[in-house]
């Protein structure tokens, strides 16, 4: 175990399926023992990337290394990776005990040792009382745990999870999310996690890569991605709801949107001309009559907070209010924008300014 750390490097990975360019040159470094999320909408290439890492898909070009060794064309079995599939892929004709023991059996582990190792893994995910059942006799949550147990029963170098929570109901998803995090801490293995659910990625991952259209557009910690999205597309994807994006102009450290002007003392020098300004709904405030007037279109009560949809001219702005109040739709409210939390993007390159 000593030199097996689980550092993954992908460089220049291309993959086409027919004329569909699934991956357009992926470069990625995943640190040892990291909980790393591959986040993106469906069809963005995150699952293909995971399958390349697993060895289930060979890239057209590019290399993949684990701890410095080139494994681009190594078979899945040679890579010592464990994977939990979205549909779990349990073997229906085997009991849970046989399912969990299968990788050990294939790895040539002595028959005497297998039952104890299986029990140990089953106990970790709390299904040790179900070992004699078959997958068809279990609930979705139990099947998911069985798939987890099968993955952790041996000591893999990489632990891969392909949307493992997407088939669970909302309540169970929250519980399992916490357990996955705990499991990762106890296993101390590099974990790569594919999800389209940004909240899941934000809460669970140490770092994440955001995929859009077969490219990685940003890599960073959840805080970095949330606080400094580096393109308009990331800004429009991260956050629920994502940030408001409004076209405007920068003139002498002032942001002009329509007739309204906002002084941006921290605006990067040299920024001028057309921009897309972004601000998160929680950084828009209600203020007195000196604020920007906006018409209330819709208010959503979220229990502890409220989400207001407001119209400033032609633009819809969302505002998160940390309290619940009563509004009547159509009424005019006044808004203030916190200049420190305004993100600027170049509308042509779509990249962050500053």
């Amino acid at each position, binding site marked *: 175990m000593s030199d097996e750390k689980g550092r993954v490097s992908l460089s220049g990975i291309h993959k086409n399926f027919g004329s569909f360019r699934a991956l357009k040159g992926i470069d990625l470094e995943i640190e040892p023992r990291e909980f790393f999320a591959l986040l993106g909408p469906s069809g963005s290439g995150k699952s293909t990337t995971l399958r390349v890492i*697993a*060895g*289930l898909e060979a890239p057209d070009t590019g290399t993949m290394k684990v701890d410095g060794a080139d494994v681009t064309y190594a*078979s*899945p*079995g040679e890579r010592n*990776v*464990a*994977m939990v*599939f*979205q*549909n*779990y*892929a*349990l*073997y*229906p*004709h*085997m009991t849970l005990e046989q399912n969990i023991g*299968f*990788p050990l059996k*294939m*790895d040539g582990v002595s028959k005497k040792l297998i039952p104890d190792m299986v029990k140990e893994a089953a106990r970790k995910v709390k299904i040790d009382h179900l070992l004699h059942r*078959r*997958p*068809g*006799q279990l609930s*979705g949550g139990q*099947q998911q745990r069985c798939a987890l147990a*099968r993955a952790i029963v041996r000591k893999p170098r990489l632990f891969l999870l392909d949307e493992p929570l997407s*088939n669970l109901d909302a309540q169970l998803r929250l519980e399992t999310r916490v357990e996955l995090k705990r499991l990762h801490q106890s296993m101390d293995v590099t974990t790569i996690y594919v999800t389209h659910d940004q909240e899941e990625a934000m809460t669970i991952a140490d770092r994440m890569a955001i995929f859009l259209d077969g490219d990685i557009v940003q890599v960073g910690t959840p805080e970095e991605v949330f606080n400094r999205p580096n393109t308009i597309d990331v800004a429009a994807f991260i956050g629920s709801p994502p940030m408001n994006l409004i076209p405007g102009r920068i003139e002498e450290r002032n942001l002009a949107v329509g007739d309204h002007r906002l002084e941006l003392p921290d605006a990067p020098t040299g920024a001028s001309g057309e921009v897309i300004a972004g601000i998160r709904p929680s950084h828009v405030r209600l203020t007195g009559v000196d604020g920007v007037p906006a018409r209330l279109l819709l208010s959503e009560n979220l229990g502890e907070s409220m989400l207001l949809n407001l119209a400033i001219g032609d633009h819809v702005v969302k505002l998160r209010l940390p309290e619940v109040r009563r509004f009547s739709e159509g009424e005019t409210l006044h808004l203030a924008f916190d200049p420190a939390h305004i993100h600027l993007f170049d509308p042509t390159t779509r990249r962050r300014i500053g």
Partner: protein
Amino acid sequence: MALNPHKAARLRRNAVLYVAAAILLLIWVVPIAWAVVVSLKTESEVLAYPPQIVFHPTLENYRDALTGSFSILSSFVTSLILSSATTVLTILLAIPAAYAFARLRLPAKKPLGFYTLVTQMIPPIGLIIPYFLILNKIGWLDSYQGLIVVFLTFSLPFAIWLMVSYMEDIPREMEEAAFLDKANRFQTLWHIILPQVRGGIAVTVIFVFLNAWNEFLFSVQLSGNHVRPVTVAMYNFVSVEQTLWAKLAAAALVAMLPMIVIGVAAQKQIVKGLTIGAVKGGGRR
């Protein structure tokens, strides 16, 4: 007691269904029932007109058909060997072939799959002469190997395509999971695929055995006195001078027996083949 109208309608519907089923069953059962009756009569009783309803049943015909001068017993054994060997070889060859068609990336997979079916597209009668000439040339006429090879040319394409459809039903992830669990292709086939297509294998075995057992057209041309399947041997009871109907009926019923036994025994297996699924949201069909 008056029936309510719903119940009455349902009864009427059921009655119609039962009558239809009874008619179909009758069409199917009458020849076999007739053969049973004939096999229990003497040859002269069979030809008596009007047919005798009341007669003394005798097992004489069965004794003759099995151990008499026209015994089909050795042909019965021959058919058993031919059918079993055909079935075993078909399964052994069809499983890897079907797996390859279902899963591997092969060059020219589509044309290969298409031409596998070529014997199924040609009228069998058109193949008899080439087969005869070929077997004659290599000295395999009237031999076990000759007939088995000919039977394989029909059973293999059929079995491969039947197995392909069963194997394609297994989710790919299941195999990928096995590969990640360090199983090689052979282990994956053995531990993961085959147990799940047991039902399909059972169905294939039954059809292949049945076809080989019932085969007549090729057997009658390509067999002889040495290797004579039971379908051909039954013709011993038919000659220019007379047809021994009672003995023929007895022989035919004996020849039917293995099929009936297999059918009844395998019924359960076929149903069992519909294993409950491991993949969320669906069972194996």
